[in-house]
């Protein structure tokens, strides 16, 4: 019996030994790339050359999701470079987990290669620079050219308006048996793109707001959005969920004629086998346009990195050198549109160039909900607000009823933030900045 048990134990230990080594090698920079097979392969094939040229060895630690990142931070083993979005970056910075990139980037001409918004979006309330934008995209309306041709509707142009879009959607909606369940809908706007339209309607949104507000311009957009479902020209969100359909699936399968999505969207481009084009987000009447451009997140360097200079070199290479991310839209000198048209010839004559250039010309920045509200309150606000929005989109409450909930949500948020400021182990400059904001609130 003893021999058998010993043999089993030996087997287990041999097996366990196959698990490689811990990744605390000296002089090695650990990069938390996303857990994507194509991305991992592409990076791994280029890392040896980067190591030869720069003397910096980069090891990949690919994973997605924040649970693991928080566990690693708690254990003092955070990757040297990892992705943070605006909602978590400031908190991690306040708790001292992120390196102020000014320490390593000061005087580096690399900063001049970036669009100014990219650098500005990485700053926190203490003036520190805690992340460097590594990608950017805008939004647009993808449309099925064949369905437009059949319906005799002209393709959207760069100056089209919300009313033009609704008119096209009405003409493109087909309900042959008139049972109220169209076989083909004119349009689908996923609810997480609603902010893009608020932005276009010139909603006065203050970035990093501590509290929720729903200005009249936002309320107008919400009502128009609900109208699309009431008119039956857009599938209601519950139906889409019940059908288990992805938005892309609906456009690719001819279920909808127009779809609001990210531009560019690599997967969508690869999946669509229809004749398609992409138009800018429609304007609201005569109001000057303000296009969405993402800028909510980027790469941060851990405050515990053993070699900040090497981490900075690696970060710059990831943004401007690694071919999988090139041409990178955060770089001013990159021919982003040309590069993508070369990679995906179907983008030529699709309207992609116009959409992209308009977003640069009338750059409204990133006003998505988790950026709109400050890092200190966004998680709580969204957890309180989202169920109300779900009710609104399901038609169970009205926009006015939603707005009437706002004071109680804000009271709760303020109470919790005051607790947070006293309880959390934030660096003094962050605590002072948030306390100052709190002090300015009308009592």
């Amino acid at each position, binding site marked *: 019996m003893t021999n058998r048990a010993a043999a089993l134990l030996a087997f287990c230990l041999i097996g366990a030994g196959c698990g490689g080594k*811990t990744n605390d090698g000296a002089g090695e920079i650990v990069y938390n790339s996303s857990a994507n097979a194509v991305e991992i392969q592409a990076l791994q094939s280029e890392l040896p050359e980067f190591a030869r040229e720069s003397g910096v060895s980069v090891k990949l630690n690919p994973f997605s999701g924040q649970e*693991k990142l928080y566990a690693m931070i708690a254990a003092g083993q955070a990757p040297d470079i990892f992705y943070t979005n605006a909602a978590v970056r400031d908190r991690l910075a306040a708790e001292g987990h992120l390196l102020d990139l000014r320490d390593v980037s000061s005087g580096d001409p690399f900063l001049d290669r970036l669009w100014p918004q990219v650098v500005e979006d990485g700053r926190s309330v203490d003036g520190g620079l805690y992340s460097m934008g590594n990608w950017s995209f805008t939004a647009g309306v993808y449309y099925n050219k064949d369905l437009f041709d059949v319906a005799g509707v002209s393709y959207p142009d760069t100056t089209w308006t919300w009313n033009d879009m609704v008119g096209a959607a009405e003409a493109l909606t087909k309900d042959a048996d008139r049972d109220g369940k169209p076989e083909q809908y004119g349009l689908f706007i996923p609810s997480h793109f609603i902010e893009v339209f608020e932005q276009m309607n010139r909603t006065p949104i203050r970035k990093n707001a501590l509290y929720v507000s729903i200005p009249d311009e936002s309320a107008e957009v919400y009502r128009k959005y609900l109208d699309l479902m009431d008119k039956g020209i857009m599938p209601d969100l519950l139906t889409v969920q019940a059908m288990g359909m992805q938005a892309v699936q609906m456009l690719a399968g001819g279920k909808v004629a127009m779809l609001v999505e990210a531009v560019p969207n690599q997967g969508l481009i690869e999946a669509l086998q229809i004749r398609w084009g992409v138009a800018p987000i429609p304007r609201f009447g005569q109001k000057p346009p303000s296009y969405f451009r993402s800028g909510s997140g980027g790469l941060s360097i851990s405050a515990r990195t053993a070699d900040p200079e090497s981490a900075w070199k690696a970060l710059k290479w990831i943004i401007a050198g690694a071919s999988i991310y090139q041409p990178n839209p955060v770089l001013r000198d990159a021919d982003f549109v040309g590069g993508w048209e070369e990679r995906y010839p179907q983008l030529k004559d699709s309207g992609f160039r116009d959409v992209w250039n308009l977003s640069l010309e009338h750059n409204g920045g990133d006003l998505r909900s988790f950026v709109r509200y400050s890092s200190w309150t966004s998680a709580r606000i969204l957890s309180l607000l989202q169920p109300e929005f779900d009710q609104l989109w399901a038609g169970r409450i009205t926009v006015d009823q939603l707005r009437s909930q706002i004071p109680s949500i804000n009271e709760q948020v303020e109470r919790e933030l005051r607790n947070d400021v006293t309880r959390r182990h934030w660096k003094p400059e962050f605590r002072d900045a948030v306390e100052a904001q709190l002090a300015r609130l009308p009592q």
Partner: protein
Amino acid sequence: MNQRAGLSRLKAIGRFVGWYGVLIALGIVFAIPFLWMFSVSLHDLAGVFADPFRWVPEELRWSNYVDAVSLLPFGRYLTNTVVITVCVLIGTVLSSSLVAYGFSRLRFRGRDKLFALCIATMMLPGQVTMIPLYIGFSKLGWVDTFLPLIVPAFFGSPFYIFLLRQFFLTIPREYDEAARLDGAGKLRIYWSIILPLSRPALATVALFAFLGTWNDFFNPLIYLNSPENATLTLGLNMMKSQVMGTGVTQWHLLMAASLLVMIPNIVLFFVAQKHFMKGIQVGGLKG
């Protein structure tokens, strides 16, 4: 008389058809996701999105299976998964049965309280222990090795301990006494009497442990860092994640890979089905 017999025969046939009708209908409901997976694995990406969905694609793309395994170092991930699963299987069966033996056969002070304490640990959600455990394993230098996934299996699992204890209690004590008269000690009784008589329960525990480990995503995600150490479930996730947050998952390839990953589960279940059912019934999990 004949009429009555004919009537009762008709009733029996009606019951038979009724029950089997319900069972077949339920079977179809449960089989549909699996059939959908299989069908999608033979489509191209556009076919996955087609409306209406064609259950049998015009062109059966068996090459999806080759493409799916070439997208990832599938062999490496398979080896990693097998090593972890086999080790966990051995550790779980050995340690849980030994502890269950103690709780069912040995008499000592506080035994029942200890057993209750052991069972109570099942109430602790994994999220609560995740960060302390991670810190502990990282201080041992075990992160990015298979050890955090394997070693805990050698310290027993409360659910399996409970299952095996209930089974051991059904084995007559007379066997122990007879063995003791022949000079067997406690460990000899455990090894030569209890374990051989508990094959159905051990098969159940082994099957549960296999399924739990083979399909485990969360623990490998937390403890393994290097791509070369990844398991099959992490590999499948790599097919699902998107570059720069945009993109469409290659569902046809993902489903092909998922089916390949599922094969050992299905085979093992059918092979061990008899033991598994018996173990569940006698082990105290019967309703």
